[in-house]
């Protein structure tokens, strides 16, 4: 059983949703981002999304745009990202890690080599914002050959005609982008999220995690009542960046927020 499948099975047994966290590799620097990554499971992250920096993050709002710029300035590379995951795996063999980013660095590396290297490092899944089902065919065989789940995004614009196209190749879980927009901006209403999750589940048996616009423990708890997982990204990235500005430890500030979010998610169905 894959780490993702095992994790969702465990969560189902506990009757609770997953807290899925996002942080950017090498933000604000390698050491701080490794400290944050290593601390996430103990702080309550059930699934970890780890951002791969890209110069042109078209789907991201300011918080993650700046994170990518800081990461690249700090020397962030794909090779370095995989080294950080390998280091994390020395202390944690159970928490699923999903790489999230854009396609070009992977295409540049070569999809076969990248997937093999990622699997060796301990990567479980991949989310590529600019690789929709229409173009994912060139990457999926390499993902499958290396037991890496390719997680597709569904959005408010994915209608009932399109959902089957998306989920037919999905594995791991289905990510629902709860707003039409970029990361870290507007938030969807609970009723809109609930309706969307219900609609997606008519087309797939996979777990559905919801992201975009979830910033507070209260919002995370609300989503945790409606879906199989709540994804928080920009708020965590911003917490680290703001701490750094104040001269405080960015990793510990982010982990403090993760603990609050985890408490929200864990108490949601109580």
């Amino acid at each position, binding site marked *: 059983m894959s780490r993702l499948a095992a994790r969702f099975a465990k969560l189902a047994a506990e009757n609770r949703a997953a807290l899925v966290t996002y942080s950017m590799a090498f933000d604000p620097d390698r050491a701080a981002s490794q400290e944050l990554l290593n601390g996430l499971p103990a702080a309550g992250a059930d699934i970890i999304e780890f951002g791969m*920096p*890209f*110069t*042109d*993050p*078209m*789907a991201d*709002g300011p918080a993650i*745009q700046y994170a990518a*710029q800081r990461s*690249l300035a700090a020397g962030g*590379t*794909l*090779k370095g990202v995989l080294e950080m995951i390998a280091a994390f795996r020395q202390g944690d063999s159970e928490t699923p890690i999903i790489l999230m980013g*854009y*396609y*070009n*660095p*992977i*295409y*540049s*590396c070569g999809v076969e080599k990248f997937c093999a290297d990622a699997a060796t490092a301990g990567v479980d899944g991949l989310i590529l*914002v*600019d*690789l*929709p089902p*229409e*173009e994912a065919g060139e990457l999926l065989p390499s993902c499958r050959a290396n037991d890496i789940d390719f997680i*597709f*995004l*569904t*959005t*408010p*614009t*994915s*209608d009932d005609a*399109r959902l089957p196209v*998306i989920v037919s190749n999905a594995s791991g879980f289905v990510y629902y*982008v709860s707003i*039409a*927009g*970029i990361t870290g*901006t507007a938030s969807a209403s609970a009723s809109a999220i609930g309706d969307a999750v219900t609609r997606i589940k008519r087309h797939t048996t996979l777990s559905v995690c919801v992201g975009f616009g979830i910033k507070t423990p209260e919002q995370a708890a609300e989503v945790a009542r409606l879906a199989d997982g709540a994804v928080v990204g920009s708020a965590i990235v911003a917490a680290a960046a703001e701490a750094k500005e104040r001269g405080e430890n960015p990793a510990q500030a982010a982990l403090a927020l993760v603990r609050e979010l985890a408490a929200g998610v864990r108490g949601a169905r109580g």
Partner: protein
Amino acid sequence: MTSLNTYRAGPDERGHFGIFGGRFVAETLMPLILSVEQAYQQAKDDPAFQAELRTWLKQYVGRPNPLYFAARLTEAFGGAKIYLKREDLNHTGAHKINNCMGQILLASRMGKKRIIAETGAGQHGVATATVCALLGLECVIYMGATDIERQAPNVYRMKLLGAEVRPVTSGAATLKDAMNDALRDWVTNVDDTYYLIGTVAGPHPFPAMVRDFQCVIGEEVRAQMLEAEGRLPDSLVACIGGGSNAMGLFHPFLDDSSVRIIGVEAGGHGLDKLHAASLTGGRPGVLHGNRTYLLQDGDGQIQEAHSISAGLDYPGIGPEHSWLHDIGRVEYVWVKDDEALAAFQQCTRLEGIIPALESSHALAHAAKIAGGLPKDHLMVLNMSGRGDKDVNTVARALGDDFGGSL
């Protein structure tokens, strides 16, 4: 060179020209670009749409514009007969409006009320703002803060035309970053907004659609040259940033094997320094919705381009050009900033035509090769835009003092 029955059949139904093109966009945008594709297919086959477009191009844009025999440039170059396709005489001063006119009619057909666009030099922004004013549509233009500074007159033109110009400060604050922000806007305003991409790039169907709207350039050249000389031209030369003026000139001639076709990229300070020659100095990658040649580092991070011409200052190129490059049907070369600047001055002095710095790249290459060609060789050079917008840049580059008036 690969030999095909036709070079004009692309893209395939998924928007691919060989390995290039495609639809590498966020899922939120997929339904939107599929609906643009569907609407465009219907419009393309609708005689009423085509007739309306032709009317606007004639009455408003001022087409057909001349194919002008440049006798003094011909004499100065000392070889081939030089003809200039006068896109600079279009309303708003460049070829950009051909595409804007077509896409705005499409957007109206689709019931969209809000138009967004990216712009580098400001020519596409001005053309977009112009047709939005004409049809009474809301218009938002994304423009890099760096470009706003160096293209101030165009920024003010857009504002006069009623457009909102949003400065983009992310990244290097140039055209690439403006395109990122336009995509971010579109993904956020999916219901009422149409993204009017200004060149033959972006996700399918934009590269093919923009090409189709620009093909009026090459179609006119064909008819005009037959009338002037009784035969087809021997060579075509056009500058390339994203490549829409070039594609519009080239495409109608791709299957005429006697016609030599040359695209001129911006070599900036030289290929070992900062430049914008994606085909010569880049390699295939994925950005802004399509696979194409890109300037990028070894880790697949996109690099900043440089050209004296803001309109060519982009690290990518339209995917069909990448394909034509790889199969060898079109030759792609590059000229440097200073060569373009010299050509700018030469054309202005000899012909009384101030060319855009973009078009000056094509002139500079023609100057290099025309002298070695026979005197009956017919060369068509696309004068893609006028250079009024560039006088500040040129003055700075030449170290001229405008007496503080600029």
